[in-house]
């Protein structure tokens, strides 16, 4: 029990590390996922191919391999960035593939007439997508995006194993200090539960407010 009270600062640092990683990576994933989803439904073939390749490769890459390639490979390549930033990029790109697929299935739920109406008003592809279809698609894919972001928060533990400061990483220090391992892990588990349940609650609120039943 006193593992937590004795090392509140360390736990706090790890917890904040996980939260930061999750927030920044979510932003990267949402922006890239949005971009890739637009690519995948674009009228130009090469955009569609690019989006498809991006999603297919990233969805089938083990995240550990991606971290290995980005955190250990890229520096050998002459690209030296802070570890934290590398981790955000890896997590963000990986998750963007899942966000893209969620959004794309959302686009399919928007009735065809909406797009036709937008076009008959003289809107271009970009306008139709950006002002008519995507805002509605977003509303119908709030739950799957929520679960994707929860998965992202959980996946961020891998970054800790690659020595980025976050929650799981705290176990190493506490283990060396000789604290009970079971209690150490229990509090780590509680930390992750707090994060995942908060995201879940946030998305429940969002869904109640903005979700649409189709």
């Amino acid at each position, binding site marked *: 029990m006193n593992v937590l009270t004795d090392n509140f600062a360390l736990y706090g640092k790890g917890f904040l590390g996980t939260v930061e990683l999750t927030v920044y990576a979510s932003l990267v994933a949402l922006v890239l996922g949005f971009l890739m989803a637009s690519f995948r*439904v674009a*009228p*130009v*073939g*090469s*955009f569609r191919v*690019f989006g498809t390749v991006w999603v*297919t490769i990233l*969805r*089938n*890459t*083990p*995240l*550990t*391999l991606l971290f*290995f*390639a980005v955190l*250990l*490979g890229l520096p*050998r*390549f*002459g690209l030296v960035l802070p570890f934290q930033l590398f981790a955000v990029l890896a997590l963000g790109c990986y*998750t963007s593939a899942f966000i893209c697929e969620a959004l794309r299935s959302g*686009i*399919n739920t928007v009735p*065809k*007439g*909406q*797009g*036709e109406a937008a*076009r008959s008003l003289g809107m271009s*592809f970009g306008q*139709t*997508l950006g002002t008519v*279809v995507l805002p509605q698609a977003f509303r119908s894919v709030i*739950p*799957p995006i*929520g*679960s*994707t972001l*929860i*998965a992202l928060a*959980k*996946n*961020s*533990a*891998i970054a800790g*194993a690659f020595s980025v400061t976050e929650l*799981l990483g705290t*176990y190493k220090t506490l283990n060396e200090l000789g604290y009970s*391992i*079971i209690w150490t*892990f229990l509090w*780590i*588990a509680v930390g*992750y*539960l707090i994060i*995942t*349940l908060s995201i*879940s609650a946030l998305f429940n609120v969002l869904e109640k407010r903005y979700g649409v039943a189709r």
Partner: protein
Amino acid sequence: MTAHALHGDLESTALYDLPGPRARRRHFFYGIASTAVILGLIGWLLYLLFDTEQFTAAKWTPFEYKGIQELLLKGLWNTLKAFAYASVFSLVLGAVLATGRLSLHRPVRWLSTLCVEFFRAMPVLVMIFFIFVALKVQPLPALVAGLTLYNGSVLAEVFRTGINSVEKGQREAAYALGMRKTQVMTYVLAPQGVRAMLPTIISQLVVALKDTSLGYLITYEEFLHAGKLIASNLDYDLPFIPVVMIISPIYIGMCMLLSWFATWVARRERRSPKTKAVDIDIEAAGPGAVLPGRI
């Protein structure tokens, strides 16, 4: 080429009209421009690779040695071994937990619900580390146990959704024929439920295959671990990039094969008159799913 072949399933989104001659010319121009940008990026990447001497002989010679090839093959074999154990055990655990959640006895139901919700909410790596560090289990059993607990709980929800998707009349008819609870489940509900959920089950196995690479973090000697051993060798000038170039296509290829298999099964199911296609994501498993699964 017909308009339909040109646009495929995109036609249904109605985001744009069938392009006329002017639009087609414009799209052709966009296509050329974007291809040029992509080729430029690839060229820049290649330049960087050559510039940092990733293609020097020293970095690629290790792959010619038999010992190194055997090391990689052994790693691949260990990855597949962990995957095989993890998938069999998670299917079993999933079946057990799903039976528990569908049980008529309240304590059993609560206990299995608690298990499912807890193991789905935890990062799989935390469970693996806990088993490896706190319970002092060997790397392979620790990895398999962690993967089993996580994927088993997700599969339990998949099985449950599948069984609930079987029409109510089937169950009623089976009871009317005088079947017992177990008989109804094993002869009527489970075969139909599993068939409807087969694509989702295979997709979850892709997750298990991807996650075997977590064994690298607990020193299990799997594929990525073998790669790391080669990559951190000073004699070969630290060939990190060549190792990534060799390992990633194999990993991605294995996962893609399994994903394609899932898609193929799904397409076959949709055509089959015997089953109603069930397009349910694990994520959309209903209001019971408080904490959705990992991807």
